[in-house]
């Protein structure tokens, strides 16, 4: 299956939870915010929200800025 991850095509074997996606990407869930199909998802729901084929995911964090 294919999703759009931060604007890029990204392949996954099967649907998985946001928590599992972050684990696979080696991203600390405490430091990011995530949009799933344009909806912001709460951190405490990362284990329940399932990423399916065709979904759009944005993962953002804080970077230097003024």
């Amino acid at each position: 299956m294919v999703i759009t991850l931060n604007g890029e095509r990204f392949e996954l074997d099967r649907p998985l939870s946001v928590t599992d996606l972050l684990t696979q990407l080696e991203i600390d869930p405490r430091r990011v915010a995530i949009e799933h199909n344009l909806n912001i998802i709460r951190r405490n729901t990362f284990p329940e929200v399932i990423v399916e084929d065709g979904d759009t995911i944005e993962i953002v964090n804080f970077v230097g800025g003024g």
Partner: protein
Amino acid sequence: MTDSPFVIAGRTFTSRLIVGTGKYSSFPVMAQAHEASGADMVTVAVRRVNLTDRSRESLLDYIDTDKIFLLPNTAGCYSADEAVRTARLGREAGLSNWVKLEVIGDERTLFPDNEALIEATRVLVKEGFVVLPYTNDDPIACRKLEDAGAAAVMPLGAPIGSGLGIQNVNNIRIIREFARVPLIVDAGVGTASDAALAMELGADGVLMNTAIAGAQEPVAMATAMKYAVIAGRLAYLAGRIPRKMYASASSPVEGMVGR
């Protein structure tokens, strides 16, 4: 002389200097500059996680968030919708409802789009955000932002990163007269005297990034800015003497030798 505390939306800050986290040569230099500045609020930007290079260190490893309050910005947003979306993501990433709201209207000047800025302020205030809008040095725009529920107004001194200092001193004075919320001069500071001037005009605080991060010695400049903001504030509270055309002697005119 005692000063009133620096309070925004019920939160008290020890420093009237707010600094950025961008453009530093390294995170350790940034951390040292933050320490030297004495700032207890820093701005951060919200961007996509770098998925190809996960080895890169995180900005947050170099900010002691027990001591320093994070203020996410919406830098780079060119519409109200985009800014609102970014503010919501910032809230989720940082777990606070504060935002430095930027809606840019022009790429070369990075001047704000006032209309979109006011619209985005309204939306975010309704959603419970503490909105600190970066705005033009326009007293009317500042008044409209205040009416829309902004927790502070943050007029620019000069274009972002320009280092030109405060270009329209009189407008900042007028905004000072008008504002019932904290006034923070945001952007355009080049050196310490610019920050001092902002405070002398009655600003409650100054926000800067490039002036420190881009200095040849950022840590030394951060120290200079710390003192400039303190000096400017004290001078404002002390009440300066009026400007006069001609001299008035400081030493007695009587008792001159040989007269």
